[in-house]
């Protein structure tokens, strides 16, 4: 006998498959009664009898009929809970299948566009600027992404939620990774990885033994973890993690220089070298006093000289190696690929607060390497570099790392990095414990921040944690529906009612996705969980439930377009009017209160996020334009204004912009950033640059960056502001110039 499958194909009848389907039905059903294999077999035997009776003379049987028989038997034999679950499952599957089939046309169309158009023609190939849609691996990723999103909508996301997404009420970010149950990002504690070494799947990497391997392994760890998640990787305290590498390198160099110089001066026999080695091995810092070694050169001036000389040499060589290590790190992070070669890892590093001599050496040389740029002087795109500003450490002129803060300003003026984070802002300083870098708030480059922890209050730390997923709410639409634009006056009660409904919906969606994430096992994320990167995952076994681990992450509720929402509500945005400023704050404060309530209720970290919105920036406004038409100040552009930002096109001073945006940083505990745009003159004025960063600090910004044009002519290598003509070699865009002219420019550059 043949079985007719759903697609019309005929296959040989196989009783075993029926037995397994019944077994699966029993196992997947949630019930208090403990059934065993005997129960499975009883139903199986009954179904086989039915088939023999009814289909004895037939040569074919449709698969749906077999499933009907299983259902009937489960019901008649009294397995009610199993029957209901089985039947529900069948119904859902069949609905999903129908829905997926309905999407096939759309899917083919999307694949067609990805395959037959170039990135410049097809917007969807530029959804994520970190993926080059013109390359084979970039396109492959986009194929997968397109299919996976449709699958998620049909099979995994509740229909009311996927409808809300398609309608543009909410936006589920990184939906393409929803079926895989990946989480967004992780703040990696490198010191933990370095302590025991780690494995990336094909062999073990031992504990690094000098600063070069510290930096190389840091890049590998970032790259490996990037494959286990759909967001980015952040290093919370890069300076602290690299410092021991500097110390080890210094010790090696010191011993080697001493040995060489003693040998050269034929003084080897005058000292007890083993004892010296022992003493050097025990050093806790590279900042040493010569007098500590007095015992070895007590009476001999020449030996003392050798010690001094060897120390100088060791310091110089350590400095040099640290620079090379940092240079290699920056190069690696801009060239190593992950995710089937489609992307360089989305990497961020936080630093600036380690005041040890080693930590300072790391920060200084990292900044020098960033300043020098890549092989042809290009501005490094990764890692996103974040300088942690902190009073008493680097903020005031007298602070120990003040020089590094100034250097950061100088480098940022040229390279756009570092960005600045502010540990003194109250919502960050509340976690800070002196001497424990794990309690210094870190940022993911894109702005995500994970610090508070209602699920595990003992673990209010940055390290080993990250966001699980985030979903954003279309605020402008709520403004349009309930504001001045469509009513006589803003109906705030109706606005808040619908806003609460949307928050509830997003909460449901985040939980639905969280359940998929928690259904995975350690072996699904061999690096993130297998190597113990995520907090408390060190002792997980392959069969353990990962839910308690993932509860340390955050579930973020995001938003876009506060400015357009306010304009739709009351006719003005928060850059323009005090009334809008008050209302804007009230709306976002309301959202934060809802998040806090949800956190309390579910003992999960629901956080409010000022959504980064790259792919999303044009999505909502596109749909809203079709529904509501072009509304001035609301839907008249191709994008909605990012999160709580004052619109980019609005004329405003630095002082006012930061004062207006500052309060929102305190509310958005899931992450935030404020930008200042300046011209070339301002950026090259160090005092002005510092004043801007300090004003960010005073306005209690959490994370900020100063934007200025960084252009580069790849022909002569000039980096700076380029209008129509390159100030370096004098050529117009796309114009050819004589080779000699370019060479003359290069020579000039080499001397500056």
């Amino acid at each position, binding site marked *: 006998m043949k079985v007719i499958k759903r697609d019309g194909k005929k296959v040989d009848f196989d009783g075993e498959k029926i037995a397994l389907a019944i077994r699966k039905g029993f196992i997947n059903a949630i019930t208090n009664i403990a059934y065993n294999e005997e129960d499975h077999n009883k139903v199986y035997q009954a179904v086989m009898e039915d088939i023999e009776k009814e289909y004895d003379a037939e040569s074919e049987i449709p698969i749906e009929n077999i499933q009907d028989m299983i259902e009937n038997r489960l019901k008649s034999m009294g397995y009610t809970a199993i029957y209901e679950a089985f039947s529900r499952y069948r119904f859902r599957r069949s609905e999903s299948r129908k829905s997926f089939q309905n999407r096939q046309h759309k899917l083919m169309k999307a694949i067609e566009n990805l395959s037959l158009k170039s990135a410049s023609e097809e*917007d969807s190939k*530029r*959804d994520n*600027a*970190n993926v*080059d849609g013109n390359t084979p691996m970039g396109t492959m990723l986009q194929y997968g992404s397109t299919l996976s999103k449709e699958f998620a909508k049909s099979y995994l996301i509740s229909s009311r939620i996927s409808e809300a997404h398609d309608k543009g009420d909410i936006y589920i970010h990184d939906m393409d990774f929803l079926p895989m149950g990946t989480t967004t990002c992780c703040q990696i504690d490198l010191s933990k990885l370095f302590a025991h070494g780690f494995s990336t799947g094909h062999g073990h990497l031992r504990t690094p033994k000098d600063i070069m391997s510290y930096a190389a392994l840091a890049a590998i760890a970032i790259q490996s973890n990037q494959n286990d998640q759909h967001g980015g990787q952040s290093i919370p305290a890069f300076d602290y993690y690299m410092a021991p590498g500097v110390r080890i390198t210094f010790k090696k160099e010191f011993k080697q220089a001493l040995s060489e110089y003693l040998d050269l001066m034929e003084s080897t026999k005058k000292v007890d070298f083993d004892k010296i080695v022992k003493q050097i091995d025990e050093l806790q810092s590279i900042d040493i006093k010569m007098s500590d070694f007095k015992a070895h050169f007590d009476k001999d001036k020449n030996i003392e000289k050798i010690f001094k000389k060897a120390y100088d040499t060791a310091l110089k060589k350590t400095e040099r190696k640290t620079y090379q290590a940092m240079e290699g790190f920056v190069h690696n992070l801009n060239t190593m690929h992950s995710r089937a070669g489609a992307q360089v890892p989305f990497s961020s590093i936080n630093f600036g607060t380690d005041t040890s001599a080693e930590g300072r050496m790391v920060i200084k040389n990292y900044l020098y390497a960033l300043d020098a740029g890549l092989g042809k002087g*290009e*501005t490094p*795109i990764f890692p*996103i570099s974040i300088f942690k500003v902190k009073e008493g450490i680097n*903020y005031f*002129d007298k602070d120990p790392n003040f020089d590094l803060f100034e250097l950061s300003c100088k480098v940022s003026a040229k390279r*756009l*990095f570092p960005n600045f984070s502010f540990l003194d802002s109250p919502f960050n300083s509340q976690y800070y414990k002196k001497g424990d870098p794990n309690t210094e708030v870190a*940022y*993911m*480059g*894109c702005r995500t921040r994970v610090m508070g922890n209602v699920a595990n209050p003992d673990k209010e730390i940055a390290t080993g944690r990250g966001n699980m997923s985030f979903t954003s709410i279309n605020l402008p639409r709520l403004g349009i529906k309930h504001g001045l634009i469509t009513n006589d006056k803003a109906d705030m009660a109706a606005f808040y009612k619908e806003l609460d409904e949307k928050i509830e919906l997003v909460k449901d969606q985040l939980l639905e996705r969280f359940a998929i994430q928690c259904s995975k096992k350690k072996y699904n994320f061999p690096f993130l969980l297998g190597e113990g990167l995520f907090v408390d995952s060190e002792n997980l076994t392959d069969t353990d439930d990962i839910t308690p681990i993932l509860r340390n992450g955050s579930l973020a509720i995001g938003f876009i377009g506060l400015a357009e929402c306010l304009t739709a509500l009351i006719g003005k945005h928060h850059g323009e009017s005090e009334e809008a400023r008050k209302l804007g704050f009230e709306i976002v404060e309301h959202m934060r209160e809802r998040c806090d309530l949800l956190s309390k209720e579910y003992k999960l970290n629901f956080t409010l996020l000022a959504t*980064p*919105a*790259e*792919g999303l*920036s*044009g999505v909502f406004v596109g749909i809203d334009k079709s529904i509501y038409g072009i509304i001035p100040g609301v839907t008249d*552009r*191709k*994008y909605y204004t990012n999160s709580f930002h004052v619109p*980019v*096109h609005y*004329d*405003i*001073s*630095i002082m006012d912009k930061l004062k207006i945006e500052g309060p929102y940083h305190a509310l958005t505990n899931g992450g935030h950033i404020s*930008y*200042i*745009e*300046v011209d070339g003159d*301002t950026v090259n004025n160090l005092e*002005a640059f510092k*004043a801007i960063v*300090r*004003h960010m600090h*005073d306005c209690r910004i959490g994370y900020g*960056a100063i*934007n200025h044009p*960084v*252009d*580069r*002519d*790849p022909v002569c290598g000039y980096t700076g502001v*380029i209008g129509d003509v390159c100030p370096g*070699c004098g050529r117009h*865009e*796309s*114009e*050819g110039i*004589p*080779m*000699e002219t*370019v060479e003359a420019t290069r020579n000039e550059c080499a001397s500056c």
Partner: protein
Amino acid sequence: MKNETTKLVGEGIGFERIRRITGYLVGTVDRFNNAKREEERNRRKHSLEGLKTSAQ
């Protein structure tokens, strides 16, 4: 004679314009999606007017 052998470089090569989106940098505006491109074009510079800070 010399003019004939002068080799021109840079024909068809544009300038790279590095800009920030969401907190990270993108090597060139060509990689931006249409919405972000327009946003980038609309960005206004902010003035230093009245800027003072407490730190010394």
